[in-house]
C-alpha cells in the first residue's frame, strides 16, 4: 500500500505531470512550485502557467545513497535546471550517462515514473529532464 493516503500525491498531479507553475499577475514573476503569495512582490494574485519544460543544467550530482523508496533506481542523476521562463527546478535527469552531463547542458522535460510503492501500491509519475532530443531537422 502507499505510504500515505493517495490524496497526498494526487492533488499534485497537475504540476508533477506537466510542470504547471504560477505567475504573479502583478510583477510577472514565475514560480515553480506554485505559490499563493509572490515571493518577489508579495502579491496574492496568481495565475496558473504552463511551463515549456526547456532549460539548462545549473548543477548536478549522482545520488548513490538514495532515501528509502528510491533504492531500485540508484544511481540516478539529480540536477538543478534553470527553465527558460526563469525558475530553477530540482529534478532527476534521465536517459543520460554520467559523463554526458555538464554545466549548461540543454535539457527538456519528460514525464516519467518517479517511484512506486509496494507491488500493490500506486505509481507516482512526475517531471524529469533529459538532454534535448537530436532531431533530423537540426
Amino acid at each position: 500500500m502507499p505510504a500515505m493516503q493517495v490524496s497526498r500525491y494526487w492533488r499534485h498531479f497537475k504540476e508533477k505531470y506537466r510542470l504547471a507553475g504560477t505567475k504573479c499577475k502583478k510583477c510577472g514573476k514565475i514560480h515553480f512550485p506554485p505559490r499563493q503569495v509572490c515571493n518577489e512582490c508579495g502579491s496574492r494574485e496568481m495565475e496558473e502557467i504552463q511551463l515549456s519544460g526547456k532549460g539548462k543544467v545549473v548543477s548536478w550530482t549522482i545520488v548513490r545513497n538514495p532515501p528509502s523508496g528510491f533504492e531500485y533506481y540508484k544511481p540516478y542523476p539529480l540536477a538543478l535546471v534553470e527553465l527558460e521562463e526563469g525558475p530553477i527546478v530540482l529534478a532527476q535527469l534521465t536517459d543520460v550517462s554520467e559523463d554526458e552531463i555538464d554545466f549548461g547542458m540543454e535539457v527538456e522535460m519528460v514525464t516519467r515514473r518517479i517511484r512506486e510503492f509496494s507491488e500493490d501500491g500506486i505509481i507516482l509519475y512526475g517531471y524529469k529532464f533529459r538532454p534535448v532530443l537530436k532531431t533530423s531537422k537540426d
Partner: protein
Amino acid sequence: MKRLLKPIKDVGIVGYGAYIPMYRIKDEEIGRVWGANGFPIQEKSVPGIDEDAATIAIEAARNALKRAKINPQEIRAIWTGTESKPYAVKPTSTIVAQAIGATPDLDAADFEFACKAGTEAVQTAIGFVGSRMAKYAMAIGVDTAQGRPGDHLEFTAAAGGAAYIIGEKSDETVAYFEGSYSYVTDTPDFWRRQHEHYPRHGNRFTGEPAYFRHVINAAKGLMEELGYTPNDFDYAVFHQPNVKFPLTAAKILGFPMEKVKPGLLSGIIGNTYAGATLVGISAVLDIAKPGERILWVSFGSGAGSDAFSIVVQDAIEEKRDLAPKTWDYINRKKYIDYALYAKHRRKYII
C-alpha cells in the same frame, strides 16, 4: 453484404507521434545468457528504468499534439491500446489525459486485444469522430512487452508506441481513411492469464492459423471492398512480431519488398506489440508524399486483424517537422547488457 467499415463523415489523422525508448539490447546478448543462436531480429528497444506504457504513451501523445496544433482541451477521447498496463485495474489513458492537459471533458479507456489493441483504439476513434460525436479523439498503441526469460519471445518483446489524433478530414489532416475492415476469430495462439507475469504461446501454432490467416484475410477483405490491388498502394505496414512474418505476408499478398521496408522496424526495435503498426505507420508518414496510399494491417493474438487504407494529404509536408520523427528515436540508442536489461525490466528482487 458490405463488410467495409466507413463512417458517415470522412475522417483523417490530424496529428501523429511516436516514441521509442533509447535503450537497446542485441539478440546476440540475450542469446549469450540463454545459449541460443540464430536470432529473429538484430536488437530490440528496452524501456528505461523509469518508463512504462503510460510514460511512453505520454511522449507519443505530446508529439501527436505538436503536429495536430490543437488545444488538448478539444480532445474528447483518449484510448490507449496496450497489454502492459502499469495497473491491472486503473486506466492508463487517464494518466495520459492528465499529463497532456486534456482533462476533464473527455472519455478515456484502455483497450486490450494483444497486439491489435492500438488499432482497436484507432477503429473506435474513427467511429467517434466520423459520427460527429466528437471533434477529436486520440488513439494510442503502446507496449513494454515482456517475454519469459529464455523463451524465444524474449528476443523480440520490445517497448514503444505511437499516438494518433483523429479528426474530420480537412486541410489539417495529414492523411485520411478511405475505409477499414476487421477480421476476428477465436484463436488462442497467445495469452496471459490473470496474475501471471508472462504470456504463453502456441509456438508454431501462432503462424499459419493465427498471424497469417488473419493478416492476409484482413488485407484481402479490405482491398476487395475498396476495389484495390497491391499495385494501388505505395506502402504496406503489417504487424511485425519479427521480420520474417510480415515479409512472408507481403509476399503472399503480392507486395514487393520496397513497399514494406519503410514501415518494417521490428528488426532494429523489436516487436512493440500494440504499438507495432502504429509506429510503423508513423515512420512511413515521416517520409510519404501527398497522394500516396498506405495499407495498414495489424494483428492481435486471440485473434484478429484490423486493416486500414489511408491516403496522405498535403498537410504532411508542413506537419511532419513539428515533432521528432520515428527515426530520431530509432537513431538515439544506447546498448545495454543483459544485467542492466534485467534491472530495467525489474528482474531483481531487492
